[in-house]
């Protein structure tokens, strides 16, 4: 199977050929098939993992790149393959740079998922980041993203270098055999977290994500929003949970725990205040990544306190949250990409220009609804299963009997509750404003549903997400190997749903679904029977009463968009309370000057306070990035050059580290 994997990685490189000749249709089919193959390999490896790594003919002879399919890799490779396959279906004619960037992005992501040594892992993440950078038409956002990604890559690489100084090799097996101690271990923790946060967009280092996602082409956004953050955090998870050995202290968990809770809060808030589709997506991704990090922190905390059962529980919550970030966040990105392709400008479509799309685009509406409700963590969708596991872990954190951890869990619980509430509100706002109500612009009124292959890209991931929500115990059974590999103990599960601890807390999704379906059928039957005795026909239709607004002019057949709720107006109750502290939000009403007939205007602005603070901190790195960018068009050659330079730098580091 590993040989097949290696051959398919080679095939990924071959995909650059059709891209170079701009044969986009060939690229679409070939990439979809190849990524489907990766998904199949991932599923097979979940059933029968092959942890012994295979050396690729890549890299220096004394440290060839290693790939392998252990249970953790397989758990992430399967959804990554599926997401890549569906993203490929959204490919359309594009510039050569954009087309060539796509296979490179896929290659980088897959490589980082199956890497079995530190060098390959970081290389994969950086290749993916550079490819995404090349694909973004908006250079400013791309530069910002590249800056964060390179910083993250360097941090991760430095962490691996520190570890390998003791182990003598960058291979995972060697690293596991000689875990770091003392200050080295602490430095590795900080570097791994910093690297993953910067590469993946964990708050407060999430400033690049909204801009990069807004600019990303349709096929890149799901991978950049769903896969890259999850895989970046997977790198940190591998480092702090697996490679540094099981003997690390429990205070290691406090930082990821608090960071995760903070990211959920900031992500939920951001999703609620952004007015662009992709901006909302970026907020949801940050929150999803926060859940993943939170689970990682909990697992570390419990493991250090010798509480194996809650540790396995929290870890399985983290792994489920990671895969849900890929599938749920990815499906949301896919659906929004389709909306933008069909109904609005691909870059920068705004909530205030859309509306009423559920009538024209039922498939996209259904997919976005499934993804949105799942991201908002409502039962019986997959996001709720992950959140339930994590909450059970948080509710058990007081058993560690240490005031620091107890108060950390208390703070995290508060941030998590508020953040998930805001995220649910943001998802309802997103779906309601895009798919419900009346069209707010003529182009939206004439939009059509997803064309041919894009339909498959919406339908199948929706079904997968629904399946994951309905059968979380199946997911738990599949991730058993990963949990055992990382933690050494199995996670508890029952066939009907999830279970936590021995005190009988359960999330039994199948009985819930069954009873709810029964109740719905009963209500429907009673209402029908009662109706059958009176007026029998279905609902009647009547013109909409517009709430007292004056009749719209004739060039607005769907009414004045101003007579519907706006994106900012929907968020107003939250902005009034949290807008200032969390987002630097300011608003005022500007009255027209005396004598003028103009109406008063409501002006508001907000700026990401974290990005502003970082801007000051990182002006040096920004200058370097500018230097690298100057005088260069985003051509394939440019992309290759940056990628090559990164490889050379990493090789030099490697050579220095490996020197006998």
């Amino acid at each position, binding site marked *: 199977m590993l040989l097949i994997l290696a051959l398919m990685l080679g095939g990924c490189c071959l995909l650059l050929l059709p891209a170079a000749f701009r044969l986009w249709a060939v690229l679409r089919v070939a990439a979809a098939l190849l990524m489907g193959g990766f998904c199949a390999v991932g599923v097979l490896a979940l059933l029968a993992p092959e942890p012994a790594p295979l050396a690729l003919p890549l890299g220096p002879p004394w440290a060839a790149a290693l790939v392998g399919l252990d249970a953790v890799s397989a758990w992430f490779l399967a959804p990554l393959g599926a997401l890549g396959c569906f993203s490929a279906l959204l490919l359309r004619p594009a510039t050569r740079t954009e087309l060539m960037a796509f296979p490179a992005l896929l290659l980088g992501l897959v490589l980082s998922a199956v890497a079995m040594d530190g060098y390959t892992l970081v290389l994969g993440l950086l290749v993916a980041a550079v490819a995404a950078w090349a694909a973004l038409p908006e250079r400013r956002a791309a530069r910002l993203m590249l800056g964060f990604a390179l910083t993250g890559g360097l941090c991760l690489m430095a962490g691996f270098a520190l570890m390998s100084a003791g182990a003598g090799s960058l291979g995972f097996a060697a690293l596991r055999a000689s875990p770091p101690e003392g200050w080295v271990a602490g430095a590795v923790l900080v570097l791994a977290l910093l690297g993953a946060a910067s590469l993946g967009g964990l708050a407060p280092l999430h400033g690049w994500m909204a801009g990069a996602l807004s600019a990303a082409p349709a096929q890149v956004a799901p991978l950049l929003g769903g896969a890259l953050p999850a895989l970046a955090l997977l790198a940190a998870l591998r480092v702090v949970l697996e490679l540094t050995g099981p003997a690390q202290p429990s205070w290691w968990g406090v930082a990821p725990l608090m960071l995760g809770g903070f990211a959920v809060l900031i992500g939920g808030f951001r999703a609620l205040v952004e007015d662009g589709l992709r901006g909302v997506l970026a907020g949801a991704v940050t929150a999803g990544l926060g859940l993943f990090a939170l689970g990682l922190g909990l697992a570390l905390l419990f493991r250090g306190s010798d509480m194996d059962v809650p540790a396995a529980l929290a870890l399985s919550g983290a792994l489920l949250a990671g895969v849900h970030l890929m599938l749920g966040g990815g499906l949301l990105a896919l659906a929004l990409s389709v909306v933008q392709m069909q109904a609005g400008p691909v870059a920068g479509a705004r909530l205030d220009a859309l509306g009423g799309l559920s009538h024209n685009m039922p498939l996209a509406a259904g997919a976005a609804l499934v993804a949105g409700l799942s991201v908002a963590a409502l039962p019986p969708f997959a996001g*709720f299963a992950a959140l339930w596991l994590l909450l059970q872990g948080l509710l058990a954190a007081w058993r560690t009997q240490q005031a620091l951890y107890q108060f950390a869990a208390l703070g995290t619980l508060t941030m*998590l509750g508020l953040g998930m509430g805001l995220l649910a509100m943001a998802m*309802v706002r997103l779906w309601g404003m895009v798919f*419900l109500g*009346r069209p707010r612009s003529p182009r939206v009124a004439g939009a059509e549903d997803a064309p041919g292959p894009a339909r498959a890209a919406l339908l199948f991931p929706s079904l997968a997400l629904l399946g994951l929500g309905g059968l979380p115990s199946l997911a738990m059974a599949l991730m058993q190997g990963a949990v055992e590999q990382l933690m050494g103990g199995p996670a508890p599960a029952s066939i009907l749903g999830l279970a936590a601890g021995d*005190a*009988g807390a359960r999330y039994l999704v199948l009985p819930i679904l069954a009873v*709810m379906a029964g109740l*719905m059928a009963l209500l429907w039957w009673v209402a029908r029977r009662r109706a059958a005795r009176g007026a029998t026909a279905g*609902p009647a239709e009547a013109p909409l009463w517009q709430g007292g607004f004056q009749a719209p002019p004739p060039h607005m057949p769907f009414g004045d968009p101003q007579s519907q709720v706006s994106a900012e107006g929907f968020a107003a109750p939250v902005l009034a309370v949290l807008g200032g502290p969390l987002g630097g939000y300011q608003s005022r009403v500007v009255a027209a000057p005396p004598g003028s007939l103009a109406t008063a205007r409501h002006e508001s602005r907000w700026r990401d306070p974290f990005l502003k603070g970082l801007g000051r901190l990182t002006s040096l790195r920004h200058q370097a990035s500018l230097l690298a960018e100057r005088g260069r068009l985003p051509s394939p050659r440019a992309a290759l050059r940056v990628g090559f330079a990164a490889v050379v730098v990493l090789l030099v580091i490697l050579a220095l580290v490996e020197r006998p």
Partner: protein
Amino acid sequence: MILSITATVLAQWLHGALVLALAPLLAGLLAMMGARLRGRRMPSVLDPWREIWRRCRQRPVLAQTAGPVTRCAPYVATASTWLALMLVPGFALGMALAPVGDVLVILGLLGLSRAAAALAEMDAGTAEGGLRASSRLSVAAFAAPVLLLGLLVLVMLSGSSNLDTIAAYVRENPPGPHVPLALTAAAMLAVALAGALGVADTDSVPAEASGRHLALWRLEAAMRLMLWLCLPAALFLPWGLVPADEGPLAWLLGMVAWLAKLVLLAGLLALLRGRGLPARRPQFLGAALLLAALAAALMFVSTGLA
């Protein structure tokens, strides 16, 4: 064995039917008490039921811009609130669905029903609908951390997030002067009141709904009101709950206690509504959050010393 299983299933069905029947009556009772406190003529307790039954026969009228969401949402919302209410112990502990009755699941089901209601509000595309959806959801977002912290205290006490287990624990360990539990009770009661007061407003159903959809929405609102009264009754006044497999006579006893608790809480709610207490809900919920955090901190200290 088989007998006791049959009994728990029967108790569950009875409970489900009872909450369905009692919810509109409770809404009627609240309206009656409110009118009495304001010195107006009292409406009949049966009014909400009469209206629901009458509306059920009417044909719904949909706005031309409305779509399938308006048609499906009332069923989804009502069923999920009903299920949440069925999971809260009323007269008996250990009913058939007791293993399902996790507090987080109940909160999730309420969230699902709230999302369905908010989407139904937004479906037709009126300004008012959007703003009402927004206020509905924002109150829930501010209430979520309070509920989670309150749940933390209860989990620390009873060891589980299962509602039945918590109620059984509180019943068997009479909480005397227990400061954290009292603080938690105050915080969760505040949330419940904020929630119930929101429900008890006349405009708690989607503005565009009509016909049998409106009947379902009214039923849903009544059930949500009842849930916010049942939840504190089960968590903090779990006396009078009987084991579900003890048979009909015991059930009858439990029902009497349950009704007494509900009437008591409804009276409290009517009094508070008359005073217009939580006018500024975010601030009110912020105070509740402080109470809950204080309760959790006290619990940490006491478990640390123990």
